[in-house]
């Protein structure tokens, strides 16, 4: 083969490069307009009775996780991670709150039992909270700082490194 004809196969490299670059981006990570804004307040009726008001958690770092019991596999992957995170960080001033949306109560209770979840969890029966937070699918997770501002939004399953990194960063900030 004459080397001058090498351009024929090489001509596809730019396109391949562009597609490879595509792996580094996430088309779903559309920046949420809520990031940097105060978190919309809500009162959550918990599954094990009682209620939780977001305003009462001011001064703490809050991880708000929207989930559903039918959400395979992402919610199943992140549930143990969230529970582990709750056990590790609750003494340092972090709260993990689960909000169950578009679900049956029976399925949700079974899910909580299956993973032995101990952090506060409650349903969002009218979808009011998920609408306020612009939730598009499950799971979605919001990170709220000590001042009650949304600092980050994550779409898809939360991984242990991600949770640790975000929590450490937010916990270091002064109240």
């Amino acid at each position, binding site marked *: 083969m004459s080397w001058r004809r090498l351009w024929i196969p090489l001509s596809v490299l730019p396109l*391949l490069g562009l597609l490879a670059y595509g792996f580094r981006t996430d088309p779903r990570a559309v920046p949420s307009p809520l990031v940097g804004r105060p978190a919309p307040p809500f009162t959550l009726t918990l599954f094990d009775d009682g209620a939780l008001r977001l305003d009462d958690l001011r001064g703490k770092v809050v991880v708000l996780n929207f989930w559903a019991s039918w959400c395979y596999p992402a919610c199943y992957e992140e549930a143990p991670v969230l529970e582990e995170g709750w056990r590790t960080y609750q003494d340092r001033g972090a709260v993990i709150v689960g909000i169950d*949306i578009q679900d049956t109560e029976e399925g949700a209770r079974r899910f909580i039992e299956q993973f032995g979840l101990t952090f506060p969890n409650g349903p969002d029966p009218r979808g009011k909270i998920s609408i306020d937070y612009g939730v598009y*699918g499950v799971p979605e997770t919001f990170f709220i700082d000590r001042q009650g501002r949304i600092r980050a939004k994550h779409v898809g399953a939360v991984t242990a490194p991600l949770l640790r990194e975000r929590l450490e960063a937010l916990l270091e900030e002064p109240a």
Partner: protein
Amino acid sequence: MIPEIGFAAITVALALACYGTGAGALGAARHRPALVASAQHAAVGIFVLLAVAMLLLVYAFLTFDFSVRYVASNTNRGTPFYYRITALWGALEGSLVLWTWMLAGYTLLVVAFYRWRQREAYPWVLAVLLGIMAFFLLVMTVPASPFQRLDPIPVDGRGLNPLLEDTGMITHPIFLYLGFTGFTVPFAFAMAGLIRGRLDEAWITVTRRWTVLAWYFLSMGLLIGGWWSYHVLGWGGYWAWDPVENAAFMPWLTATAFLHSVMIQERRRMLKVWNLLLIILTFSLTLFGTFLTRSGIIASVHSFTQGTIGAFFLAFIALVLLFSLSLLAWRADRLRGQGELDSLISRESVFHLNNFFHVGVTFTVLLGTVFPLLSEAVRGVKVSVGEPFFNAVSIPIFLALIFLMGVGPMIAWRRASWAGLKRNFLWPVAIGAAGALVFFLLGVRHALALLTLGLVLFVAATMVHDFWRGTRARMRAGRGPVGAMADLALRQNRRYGGFVVHQGVLLVALGITGSQVFSVRTETSLRRGESIEVGRYQVRFEGLEAEEKSNHFLVTGVFTVANDRHVMGRMSPGKKFYPQEQQPIAHVAYRSGWREDFYLVLGDFSRDGQLATVLAMVNPLVSWIWLGGVVITLGTALLVLPGRRRDA
């Protein structure tokens, strides 16, 4: 246990494919028939093993084996029986099984047909096909195993994507995949030719029927996809230039170009490199489509599938492109075309234009599809490219292609004479112009619509004119009119099969024009007992009904519909509420007719059933699109008939 057997079947098939690729290639290079025969056995084994894997997966679906992740993700206990079977191809992993099984099936046909007939090329063809299967089997083993276990085992599954619970979704993927995989065979023959350095027209004549059939399946896949979108998605349209649609449309465009340009090579031995490029492009685009929609690099609706599958596909696309294009560059010396263009007014030149336009649209669509990525890479800005861009660029080109469709089959090879042009085109041009004028006088003022109507009439007239002249010649030889027509169509089945397919395309073009240009829509809220008028229809809202289905809750609005002449009866558009979906799914109600469809979608409603929003649409000529599909089917059947006489 069952999933483990399935996984084992796939793993063994992978081993066989790897072995068969090596054995086939070695057997071909060293001329060892025994090795080739052994590769052949591997191909048979792969087919059987994949069939077993597929049946096991179906079994897992039917028995609600939620320990299998793929089953848990795509069914739940409420999923109706048939959809538990079709859930097999409801998502990526199972689709790959079906895809690869089809590829194995095609490979068996290649074994059956060409083992003796194409002795020289056959071993290489077999090796290439097995190599491609090896890739898909690798994907099924490592990043996207359909038999992957789920732990802990859920009590109930997530359920099939409700949009897929539809007859369109039973057939659409089958046709699409038959089309996609079908192009692998001509690609393999092209590669075999390049490897051997025997670059005559053999690979094109051998694979002509394959190409036509693959093209047909892909066309039907696209049309059925449009029909599904039309009657399931509830927005009244059938095509949205979504990346997923574009992904299937691009290989169709290059395949259409290929179908036409091979005729030039057969007749005039021109465009050799070009044809090889087109088949390489078509095959790569079928892979690219899967890559695009499954890798998650371009936004597509609700898929949380991230993983390494995209990287596998990209690596394979890179391999295919670099390998095949390097081969092409290596063999370029032997690929000098023999004919050259004699005149600009000739069939060759029309076919060149045809190819230029098809490939032009392909690159436009490709650009529009990957532009969001390009923009983010270069400027760091997220953008989306939508319908206006695609329509603005492609509509003029499609109109030009329709025009060429009328000219190409009639104009003379090499050099057209003025007398010949007049003989072939005088009447059709007059009919097209007169038709446009009649529609203008009837009140059609939309320039684009008039242009399309005129062009369609022109093209149809060229075909009728040509067929009539052929028939008349045979009638002079003493045949009756029906006998003469049948004789003509069967003896020149390639030519007239092509004509019939073209007529089908014209019908599709008319349907698209009618529904895009003249569609009327109204969206309004109605109190119970209130009526609205849309076009010549009156719609009255009678109330709401609700029903609990096996896996969803269905709310329907009851409407009585009348047109200006008579009462048409009740129509009940609804909304389906699936527990696992954020958004309710539309249940469209529509009445189809030759002239137009009347289409109702239920919007929001009050819980007491006193108030409902309804979207009412009158979509003219939509059913002509589907009719076009039927005509294309008939034409393809005629095209692939074994010809009685070997001519074009």
